[in-house]
């Protein structure tokens, strides 16, 4: 079942002589449980595409359907509470993990649950469940600064999964990890896609990490090429 459909998406910055076309006629479809990799060199438009998929950056043209709802078309976001869509349906992990430094690992996972009004006891139990799933439950009461890079990334993934996200967007999730830890994180993402039926889009520049992905797209000068 299709969870994300992008048609003819383009993004232009500036105008006239200063116009830069960051994305050009991008079309993409991702289904539940699918693992998708976006590869590309620096400046190819990976982050711009990720921002558009994250509903942070408004595309110039095109159409985005997400979870059976048209989120973006000619008229813009069309009055949809995009922050709410992000809160309830999209999970994020980042290159630098971006855990909230003053919250413990467990509290970082509870945070997105608190945003959707889940009761404290339920949220705590779900957070512990996710940390156990990520095999880091024993570090639940630690602040991010006391965790290793790999541990932080696992907490970040647990946070992304907290609200049973339908789409997980991972921006260079292995960039700050060594190969072994990077591979471990990728395995976890694959496990999530398989077991939770969440679609996972990973932006990376490291081709070693995308073994076993369902689709691999290459971005070059704002244009998308599908490899497999």
């Amino acid at each position, binding site marked *: 079942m299709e969870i994300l459909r992008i048609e003819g998406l383009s993004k232009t910055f500036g105008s006239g002589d200063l116009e830069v076309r960051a994305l050009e006629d991008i079309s993409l479809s991702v289904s539940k449980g699918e693992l998708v990799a976006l590869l590309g060199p620096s400046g190819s438009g990976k982050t711009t595409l990720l921002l558009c998929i994250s509903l942070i950056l408004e595309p110039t043209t095109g159409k985005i359907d997400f979870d059976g709802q048209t989120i973006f078309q000619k008229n813009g976001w069309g009055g949809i509470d995009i922050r709410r869509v992000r809160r309830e349906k999209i999970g*994020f992990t980042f290159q630098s993990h971006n855990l*909230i430094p003053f919250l413990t690992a467990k509290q970082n996972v509870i945070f997105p649950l*608190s945003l959707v009004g889940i009761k404290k006891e339920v949220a705590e139990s779900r957070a512990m469940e996710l940390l156990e799933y990520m095999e880091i439950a024993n570090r639940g009461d630690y602040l991010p600064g006391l965790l290793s890079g790999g541990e932080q990334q696992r907490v970040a993934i647990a946070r992304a999964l907290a609200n049973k996200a339908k789409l997980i967007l991972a921006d260079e999730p292995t960039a700050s990890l060594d190969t072994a830890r990077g591979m471990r994180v990728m395995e976890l993402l694959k496990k999530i896609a398989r077991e939770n039926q969440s679609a996972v889009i990973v932006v990376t520049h490291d081709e070693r990490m995308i073994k076993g992905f369902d689709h691999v797209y290459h971005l070059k000068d704002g244009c998308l090429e599908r490899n497999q």
Partner: protein
Amino acid sequence: MDLAFYDLKQHRGRFIATVIGVGLLFTIVLAMNGLYRGNIYEGLALINATNPDLWVVERYRGGPFNEQSTIPEFYHYSVKSVPGVERASPFIYYTVERPIEGKSRHFSIIGYDIFGGLGGPQKIFAGRSIQNAHYEMVAHPKLGVHIGDRVTLGLHTYTVVGLTKEAVSSDGEALVYLSLPDAQEVLYQRDNEEVRAQRERLLRDLRGQSYLSPTQAEKLLVPLQSETHIINAVLVRLKPGANRAEVARLIDDWLYLSAFSTENEVELMLKGRLASIAKQLLLFRTLLLLISVVIVSLVVYTFTMEKIRSIAVMKLIGAPNWVIVRMVMEQSLLLTIGAFLFGAVLIMNTHSLFPRTILIVPGDTLLTFIIALAGGILASILGLWQALKTQPAMALGG
């Protein structure tokens, strides 16, 4: 989830230091409030404690506390004869600086008719009132004297026979009550050489007048010497049912004096001597409150800027603006409330150590708290503005 609390828990050292710093500023603001109230209390204490029906002073003068008023002592007989007046008592009030127990002390002296006159100490908490016409005094314990102590003022020594805390002078200094003749003597007492020199000057002037013989000149010398039977005011108690305004009008019109009610005296003080200090303290308080708000604002801004990436992550995750607004504002309010409580507790426990009266009035403290709270909300605006304009995209990338 209380993000503000968790963040402050992480930075508790800095938070506590800031609370103490801003709290000390609030201590000064509250001390200024207390000083303002204390000033008014001290300034009016004597007027309120004496509380006659009318204060009769030199014409067009606002005396005896707000402005110097000088009238001959015998005028109180004239006032007594005005219809409606039951009692009219001479009253003298002045400030001196004299050595007491080897230390130079600044205090005020009240002279009153000790034989049933108005203006004497109303509540004596130790000892008794003045009963002898001379050489007895009732003092405020601020002067550092005790019952039975002997205090030398000028040529004579006075025994402390009573202590009263009822009132202080309008400057907050200790009060000393003396009998009227004693008070006049202390006030007008001059050096003997100076008295002789003045007499010689006056005699020479009189002898220089061609229409006076030497004998006439010498006879005129005594009445022309400086008068010491001078008072500052006459305190009036009215007969039951007498019309105060009418009695005052009669005194004004027929005796060429000015008569004020206690309320008028209070007003004169508030608009006169106490007005400038009140304005001064108001400006200080405003300035200090502004400084407190600016400091809280900068601290909250710094706290917010340190969290800017976390705020971007929160926005990316989908946190609504109110979550971020609440976090920033809570920190600002926690800081303001914490600092205010620190300041309030500190001043409550130290106000008695100040030399002047610091009168902490709950209403003033509450009003300052409300202003501080509004300031705290205002202070968070800078941080809020920064937080709300943060783009979630900032969370992406390395």
